[in-house]
Structures are given as structure tokens and as C-alpha cells.
């Protein structure tokens, strides 16, 4: 199992649709600065850096982390870049945890940065089609790209297969209510891209259909921003915690799974997100959680789409498969309910700065555990075509 | 009365030179070659592959600001005169302001004529007179004539800049006279890449209007040719200005200091003014200069008297002669590459 690893500092930049005045490198430094200030340490005290960077095309440079390393003052130390689709941030946390648990380092910086709108489409004078095109490069070059593959339709296939298998679940009025509730939750997140963008369920239902069954207000928004965490192994973490007076949030469980990307026998089960199932249950096992329904208090989930949020909650074992609508119908995630789901507003309202998103989720989970004085949180990241990649983490408040 | 002087000036000439022989070699069957030789231009200055009117204007501006001994932040205005601007919508002055590191400044361009440089200088003088901050005036050009065109051996590149302000400077601006007329001599509709021109009309108009304007200026200021130690004119080629000089009875030696056309070609809006900069490099206190610039059928005449400030300012930055001497000869193919034709 290795050493205990805990979070001792965290910081994010505001998430924005576009950071016109900041460079990619500046955003990275801004988040790292917040995190080391939070941990009250010097950058020289950090042993290793883990960079979560989604996509070179977004940043207009290959190996974008090479410049950040020196700019942060991390020269002559360990630095590694993690790129794992939408789950990049979660996988970066997982990688940093592994190195620290193995005793390789005492402290580590986990940094995710994204600057999506630097890729620009001059025909439409907008960044959006170019961002979507850049994401389109993640489809495989033989079967997917020539079809006009996009992230939306690949997740839609999974959601529609689930809906065929479980008719009556994922009702449009429920997904609309979830989106509306997330828009209320984001109010408290001053770093969110859509902090003041509150919507009613009716507005969600009447919003434009992007790729059936996803409506515009049920899809995450691409965002620019950075998020950073400082990890430390047990003894160092305790010492730093004593200094800052902030409790250590321990990472007690980590689990990952990447599915097959094609449907078929022993391949992708279209109606399920098995990666979520395996990753979460592996994390539970490592954390010693027997009954997730009883243990999990906060879920910081990668909600690329509201429908996928519901299915993921079912795959985590927090609601029954086929009864994901009970999240609202039985009040499981409504205010005062059993679970606190995406208190930061999630990726739909806080924003999806791909490499930084899951790290922002971890930042939020850590803050909420302390603020609400709760015990256990589940942090989740999903990505790649047909919800193929997942990494999950269990955070525990001491 | 507020005396407006040129507080500092600076020039920039790119280091590449193309000998007219090279053009004649490239287009050996073209009849124009003998004519261009008769026009007296031996070589022309060519902007490098990575240079254009903005980078050259910036270099000249930096020299002028340095020679004036002021900070760019002290400037109240930047006016750039440029005929061959490649952008129809993008302020060169604002870019040069950014490059110099100032933003609280009125930056505007003076374009569409080969006398936009002198017009900018007259505007800059008036602006400095009206306000309390100095004004930077830049004349820069990077003209591109079509390959094998009659203008190709003549069009050179370079820039010159002046800082106008109150106080005793390099030279006091005594006065100016402008006359504007309409004639189709050089014109370029927006949809064509190169200028159209009528050389005969151009030379005729240049001669007539320059003679008339110079006499009008001298009449108004009660001066005569003998009062001036130096004359500098627009130099489309090395022949036309001498014709004007003969008509005005200006001795050849008074033309020599500012006569650079044979060594760099016609710099359009910077043509007369780079000659003025060369004169200031050699002039002594108390000497008077008459500069005239021709464009679009009209002319601007500017009279100057060299002031006390000339002493000690000469070595602040490279002189025109320094730039003239720092040269690298290129062949015709390199010229086409540097001009982005190839």
C-alpha cells in the first residue's frame, strides 16, 4: 500500500471562457503560486512536479510543460507530464500519489493548466469550432475521425444505449432539474466561469439540442484556467499541517480503469460506463470502503454531460442502475440530501479547463470536506471516446 | 512666441544594396535599362527579409528619441508618414508607440502620398506648438515596384524621424508652405498590388509645383536662394531635382549634402527628409536649410535654421553617412526574396 499521502495545499485561478491577457505559462504560475501560498511553503521545498496537460493543439506548443518547469523554479527536479484525455487531471493526481506512496518524494506539486481558446477559427471568428476540431483529433484516425466524430456524440452513444436498456430513467425533466441545481450550487464558487449563470429547469428543457439527448445547458463548457495541489507523504504532511493549522486531507483510495474503445463481445459495453465502475470500486477497496452508499459524503464528479453524471453515480454504486433519477426523485442530491454532488457547480458551471478540471474538483472536495466537516469524498475524472478512461480518488478528512 | 524646433532626428537605412546593374542583367532585353542609367541612380537600399516600413520607422524613431535626449513617455504625439503602407487598416504609429514603450500618446498615420512624411512634419510642428509635449514624426517607406517595372530600379527603402518640440534644439522650424493640387501621376487603386504611374506627368508636375511653391515660400518669408546654405528636394531620381535646382538658380553645391538618391534610390515619403537628416549631420549653427517634398501633385516646403543644440547631439546615434557606408550588396534573386516577391 505504501505511505500515506495527503493534500496540504491547493489553489486555482478563476476559470474563464477566455483569459485574453494571460499566457498559458502565466496561468500555470498563478495556480502554483496560490497552492504554495496555501501550504505556506517555498517552491524549493517541493520535490517533484506533475503536469496535467490535455492537448498540445490547445496550447499551440508541443511539450508545453518544459517551459513551466523552470518558470516555477522547479529546475533540476523531477517533472513529468500526464496526458489522459478528459481524465488527465484525475490521472495526474493518481500518478503523483503513486510516486509519493512509493516513497520516491516527500512533496509534490500537481498542476493542471488549460488554455483552449488560443486555437482560433478565423472563418467563424470564434474559438469554438476550432476547440471542437482540436478535440476531434482525439478520435481514432481510421474509424472515428472520418465520421465527424465529436466528444458529444461519443458520449451520446453510451447514454442512449443506457436509456434503451433502462427505459424511463434519465428523464428530461430530471436532467433539467440536476442542471438547474448545479447552477444554484455554483453561486458559492467565486472562481467559477458561470458563477452568476443560474438557470431554471424550464430554461434547460428549452435550450438548444446539441447532440441528442444532450441540450446546451446540460453540457460542460470549455474553459481556461489552472489548478494546483500540493501533496506530501505522512510525516511531512503532518508537519506542514501543524504549521498552517489546516487539516491534511488524506488520499486513501485510488483506482483507474480504461475500457476498450470499440463495442463488442468482451469489448465496450455500450450501455454502461465500466471504467467508472472498476475505477470507483478499486478506489473503495484500497480505502477499505465496504458500503459506499454509507461512506461517501461528497462526490466531485466529472460531469461532462448531466446524463453521464447520473450514469456515473449509478456505476459508483451510489444509486441503482436504472434508477439514477432517484438522485432527484428521492432527494439524494438535492440540498440536505444524502450526497453533496459537485458543490463547486461541476464542469458544467465552474467550467471544463480539461487538464485542470479534475484538479479543480479535488481542490473543491478538499475545501468542502473541511468547511462542512464531513468525512469522505469521491473525486472522479472521465475522458476519451465513449467514456473510456476513468480515475477515481477517495479523500478522507482526518 | 513658442519656438518650435527639431529637438532630435534619426535615420535608418537597411544595409542591403542592389546595384542597378543587377536589375539590368536580370532584364537584359528590356529597353528601359539605358533610361534608368540616365536617371542617375546607381544602387538602391533594400529592406531585409524581416524588415518593413514599421521596423525601419521604429529604428529611425529610436535614434531620434535618443538624439533628442528624451523618454518615449514624454511624447505627446506620434505621426507616421508612409506612402507604401501594406495595411489599409492598422495604425503603424500605434505599433511604433508600443515598440517604444509608450501608450499615453496620440498616434496617427499620414498616408497615401509621397509627401506624407513632410505633411506629418508640418502637422507635428503645429501639434507641438499647440500642446506642451513633444511630437515624434516618422517618415518611412518600403515601396515595392513590380519586377521589370520602370520604377523598380528607383524605389528604395529607409526611414527618418524627427522630434519636434519647444526650446532650442537642433534646428528651428522657421516656417512652412504647402500647396496641393490634383494630378494623376502616381496612383494605386486598392485592388491592385503595385502602383500605376505616368512618369512624364510626374516629372513635369514635380518641376512646376516645386518651383512655384519654393518661390511662394521665399516670397512670404522675404528670403532668397542666397540666404540658404542647403537645399533638399524630393528625389524620384537623380535628374529631376537638378532640373528644379537649375530653374531656381540653386548652386549645385547647396544640393550636394542632402542628395542621396544615387546611393539609396527614391524613398518616397522619406526621400527629402532623409536628405534633411544628412544635412543636419554636417550643418553648423546659424545655417539655413530649405526642404521641399513633392507628392500627389502638391508640395510642402519647410524652412529651418540650425540652432545651438546641434552641438553634442551629432554623436548620440549613427549618422546617415554611417548607414550609407554599412552596406551589403545582394543579387537580384535575393532582392526578390527580401521583397517577398519569391
Amino acid at each position: 500500500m505504501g505511505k500515506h499521502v495527503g493534500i496540504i495545499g491547493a489553489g486555482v485561478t478563476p476559470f474563464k471562457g477566455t483569459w485574453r491577457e494571460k499566457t498559458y505559462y502565466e496561468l500555470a504560475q498563478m495556480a502554483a503560486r496560490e497552492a504554495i501560498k496555501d501550504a505556506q511553503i517555498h517552491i524549493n521545498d517541493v520535490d517533484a512536479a506533475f503536469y496535467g496537460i490535455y492537448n498540445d493543439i490547445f496550447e499551440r506548443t508541443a511539450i508545453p510543460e518544459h517551459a513551466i518547469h523552470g518558470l516555477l523554479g522547479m529546475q533540476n527536479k523531477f517533472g513529468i507530464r500526464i496526458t489522459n484525455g478528459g481524465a488527465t487531471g484525475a490521472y495526474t493526481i493518481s500518478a503523483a500519489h503513486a510516486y509519493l506512496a512509493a516513497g520516491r518524494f516527500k512533496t509534490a506539486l500537481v498542476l493542471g493548466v488549460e488554455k483552449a481558446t488560443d486555437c482560433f477559427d478565423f472563418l467563424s471568428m470564434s474559438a469554438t469550432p476550432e476547440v471542437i476540431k482540436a478535440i476531434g483529433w482525439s478520435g481514432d484516425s481510421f474509424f472515428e475521425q472520418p465520421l465527424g466524430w465529436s466528444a458529444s456524440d461519443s458520449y451520446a452513444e453510451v447514454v442512449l444505449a443506457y436509456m434503451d436498456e433502462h427505459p424511463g430513467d434519465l428523464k428530461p425533466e430530471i436532467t433539467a432539474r440536476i442542471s438547474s441545481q448545479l447552477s444554484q450550487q455554483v453561486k458559492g464558487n467565486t472562481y467559477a466561469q458561470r458563477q452568476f449563470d443560474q438557470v431554471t429547469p424550464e430554461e434547460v428543457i428549452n435550450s438548444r439540442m446539441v447532440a441528442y439527448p444532450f441540450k446546451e445547458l446540460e453540457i460542460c463548457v470549455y474553459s481556461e484556467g489552472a489548478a494546483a495541489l500540493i501533496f506530501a507523504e505522512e510525516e511531512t504532511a503532518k508537519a506542514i499541517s501543524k504549521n498552517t493549522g489546516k487539516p491534511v486531507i488524506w488520499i486513501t483510495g485510488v483506482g483507474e480503469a480504461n475500457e476498450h474503445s470499440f463495442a463488442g463481445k468482451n469489448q465496450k459495453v455500450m450501455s454502461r460506463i465500466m471504467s467508472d465502475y472498476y475505477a470507483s470500486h478499486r478506489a473503495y477497496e484500497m480505502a477499505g470502503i465496504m458500503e459506499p452508499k454509507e461512506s461517501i459524503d461528497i462526490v466531485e464528479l466529472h460531469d461532462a454531460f448531466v446524463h453521464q453524471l447520473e450514469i456515473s453515480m449509478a456505476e459508483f454504486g451510489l444509486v441503482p442502475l436504472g434508477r439514477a433519477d432517484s438522485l432527484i426523485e428521492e432527494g439524494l442530491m438535492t440540498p440536505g440530501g444524502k450526497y453533496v454532488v459537485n458543490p463547486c457547480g461541476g464542469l458544467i458551471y465552474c467550467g471544463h479547463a480539461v487538464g485542470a478540471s479534475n484538479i479543480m474538483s479535488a481542490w473543491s472536495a478538499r475545501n468542502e470536506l473541511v468547511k462542512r466537516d464531513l468525512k469522505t469524498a469521491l473525486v472522479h475524472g472521465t475522458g476519451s471516446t465513449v467514456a473510456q478512461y476513468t480515475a477515481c480518488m477517495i479523500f478522507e478528512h482526518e | 512666441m513658442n519656438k518650435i524646433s527639431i529637438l532630435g532626428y534619426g535615420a535608418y537605412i537597411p544595409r542591403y544594396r542592389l546595384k542597378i546593374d543587377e536589375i539590368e542583367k536580370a532584364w537584359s532585353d528590356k529597353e528601359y535599362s539605358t533610361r534608368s542609367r540616365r536617371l542617375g541612380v546607381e544602387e538602391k537600399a533594400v529592406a531585409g527579409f524581416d524588415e518593413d516600413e514599421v521596423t525601419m520607422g521604429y529604428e529611425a524613431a529610436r535614434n531620434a528619441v535618443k538624439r533628442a535626449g528624451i523618454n518615449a513617455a514624454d511624447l505627446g504625439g506620434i505621426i507616421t508618414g508612409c506612402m507604401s503602407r501594406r495595411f489599409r487598416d492598422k495604425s503603424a504609429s500605434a505599433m511604433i508607440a508600443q515598440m517604444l514603450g509608450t501608450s499615453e500618446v496620440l498616434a496617427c498615420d499620414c498616408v497615401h502620398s509621397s509627401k506624407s512624411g513632410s505633411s506629418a512634419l508640418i502637422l507635428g510642428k503645429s501639434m507641438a506648438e499647440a500642446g506642451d509635449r513633444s511630437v515624434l514624426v516618422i517618415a518611412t517607406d518600403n515601396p515595392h515596384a513590380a519586377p521589370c517595372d520602370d520604377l523598380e530600379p528607383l524605389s528604395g527603402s529607409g526611414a527618418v524621424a524627427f522630434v519636434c518640440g519647444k526650446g532650442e534644439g537642433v534646428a528651428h522650424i522657421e516656417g512652412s508652405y504647402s500647396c496641393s493640387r490634383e494630378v494623376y501621376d502616381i496612383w494605386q487603386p486598392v485592388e491592385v498590388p503595385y502602383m500605376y504611374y505616368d512618369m512624364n506627368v510626374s516629372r513635369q508636375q514635380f518641376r512646376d509645383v516645386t518651383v512655384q511653391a519654393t518661390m511662394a515660400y521665399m516670397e512670404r518669408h522675404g528670403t532668397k536662394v542666397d540666404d540658404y546654405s542647403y537645399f533638399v528636394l524630393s528625389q524620384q531620381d537623380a535628374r529631376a531635382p537638378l532640373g528644379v535646382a537649375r530653374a531656381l538658380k540653386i548652386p549645385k553645391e547647396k544640393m550636394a549634402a542632402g542628395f542621396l538618391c544615387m546611393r539609396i534610390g527614391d524613398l518616397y515619403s522619406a526621400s527629402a527628409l532623409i536628405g534633411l537628416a544628412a544635412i543636419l549631420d554636417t550643418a553648423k549653427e546659424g545655417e539655413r536649410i530649405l526642404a521641399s517634398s513633392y507628392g500627389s501633385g502638391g508640395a510642402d516646403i519647410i524652412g529651418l535654421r540650425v540652432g545651438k543644440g546641434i552641438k553634442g547631439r551629432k554623436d548620440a546615434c549613427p549618422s546617415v553617412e554611417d548607414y550609407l557606408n554599412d552596406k551589403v550588396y545582394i543579387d537580384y534573386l535575393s532582392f526578390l526574396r527580401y521583397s517577398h516577391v519569391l
Partner: protein
Amino acid sequence: MTEEFRFIEHCAGDINRTIPKRYRLQGSQCSKCGALFVTKRLICPECKGTDFEEVALTGRGKVYTYSAVRVPLLPVLKKGAYAIGVIELEEGVKAEGQIVDIDPDDVKVGMKVETTIRRAREEYPGKVIYMYRFKPARQ
């Protein structure tokens, strides 16, 4: 513009955002210990400072080391060669830049240089990107 100059077609606010750096070699200085950096910094590796001021560097210095690129990405100079060097600035910090207005074979370590501004490339559609360059100092 030649094809080669369009090697990066996608750009946006990025080119506006970097104007101070590209035009004036803007550096940053730690407000606490005064450490100077050519790049924009927010975390001082010398002290624990996290506040910085932006300062314009003089751009004057001498060649610390350089290399002549003979198989160039940018076909900018004759013979297709250009010099890229590390310049030790008067302030003591080092900046990387192209050395122009000189044959790459004539560049010498220790040679005095100063900044100028040149066209670096042209981006679709018609955006000219200017950037600082080093040239031999005249005086």
C-alpha cells in the same frame, strides 16, 4: 508572403498578449529580493516572494554563446543561415534571440549587441508578428 512563414496558422489573443515581451524584452523583478528575470515570473526561487514588478530590460549586452542555423526553419537570410544566440544583458540576465544584420560566420562570443525589432513571421490571415532581435551594437 512565402509559404514557409505560415508554419503556425492558429493564433488568437496570444500575439496581442505577448506584445510587451516581443517588442521591449519585458522582464520581471521580485518586489521582495529584487531578483531579475527575463521571463514573466510569479514565484521567486530566491526568496519566498510571490509579488513581481514588470521591468523593461535595456536590451544591450554581449553574445554569451551562439549557433549558426544552416538548415533553417525560417528562410530569412542569405544562404539560408541565421544565428541564434544567448545574450548576456547589461543587467546580468541572459536572453535568447536571433542575431541579425550580420553574417552568422562573423558573430563572435563577447561581441556587443543591442535590440532591434524585426518581422518574425506572418500568421494567417495577414497578421505580422514582430519580435525583438539582437544586432551588433553600433556604438
